[in-house]
């Protein structure tokens, strides 16, 4: 009898331990991943900014200070996207941060890195760019994905975006200013939202779209919240971002 009681006691303690561990997992997922990923993403943004500042204009012949001599003068200008004179972009390797997204609606200090690729590990480091979709400012659909909750939750307030809201994609050379047009809620397998012409698979694009995808509802992955924006203007990064863009009305 005492043995049974002792076994029951141990079982009870094990169950309580398991319960505590599950709670601990929730705390880690909902709070700690935000803390660590938020910190890391802020660091990535800072280093991207410095990188952009340093190489203000790419392919500008490096003015050698002193007698370094061997500046590769005219070798290899960046490969320009042939059919799109507005932007020049060379291939970005997977996992590399190459742009910054700013959304004034989320606060004037909101800035997250955009990395190439949409793998689980990549989305923990920032916003991910769907490989194969257009690059910022290009004709077609620059499609990106971000966490709605956890891991710094870059797209937590994707449902707060209103028609006309500004979404700025900052690259080495330019600020690409998109304006939100509409949103939709789809199932995870409805990939037509990231088609070159959103939701019109197979059509030839003529406009420059930005598509943001995140999960919906919060804390679920049953649906995807999709926000579509269209390129409104391009501001050279050297000129700085117009203050008026960062103000949010309404």
């Amino acid at each position, binding site marked *: 009898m005492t043995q049974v009681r002792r076994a029951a006691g141990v079982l009870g303690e094990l169950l309580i331990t398991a319960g505590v561990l599950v709670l601990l997992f929730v705390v*880690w997922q909902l709070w700690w991943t935000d803390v660590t990923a938020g910190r890391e993403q802020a660091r990535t943004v800072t280093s991207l900014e410095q990188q952009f500042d340093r190489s203000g204009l790419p392919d500008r012949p490096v003015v050698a200070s002193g007698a370094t001599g061997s500046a590769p003068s005219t070798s290899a200008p960046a490969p320009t996207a042939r059919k799109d004179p507005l932007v020049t972009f060379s291939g970005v390797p997977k996992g590399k941060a190459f742009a910054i997204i700013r959304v004034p609606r989320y606060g004037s200090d909101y800035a997250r890195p955009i990395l190439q690729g949409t793998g689980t590990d990549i989305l923990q480091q920032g916003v991910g760019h769907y490989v194969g979709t257009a690059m910022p400012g290009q004709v077609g659909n620059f499609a990106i994905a971000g966490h709605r909750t956890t891991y710094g939750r870059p797209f937590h307030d994707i449902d707060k975006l209103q028609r006309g809201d500004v979404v700025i994609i900052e690259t080495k050379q330019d600020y690409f200013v998109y304006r939100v047009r509409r949103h939709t809620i789809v199932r995870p397998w409805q990939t037509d939202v990231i088609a070159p012409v959103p939701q019109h698979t197979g059509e030839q694009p003529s406009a420059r779209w930005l598509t943001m995808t995140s999960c919906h509802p919060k804390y679920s992955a049953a649906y995807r919240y999709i926000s579509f924006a269209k390129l409104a203007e391009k501001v050279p990064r050297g000129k700085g971002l117009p203050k008026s863009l960062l103000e949010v009305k309404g």
Partner: protein
Amino acid sequence: MYAALWRLVPGPWPVKLLAMVLLAAVVVAICFVWVFPAVAPLMPFNGNTVGQ
């Protein structure tokens, strides 16, 4: 189980308590650093992308 662990740790009770707290902290750290990051991708609520 925990009673046995308590008995196993040497020293007077403040020392025992400290040891237990440290042990708990180590378990939490192991979970946060290795276990949970490995388990998270298997959870059904972490999808944000369309496609597979």
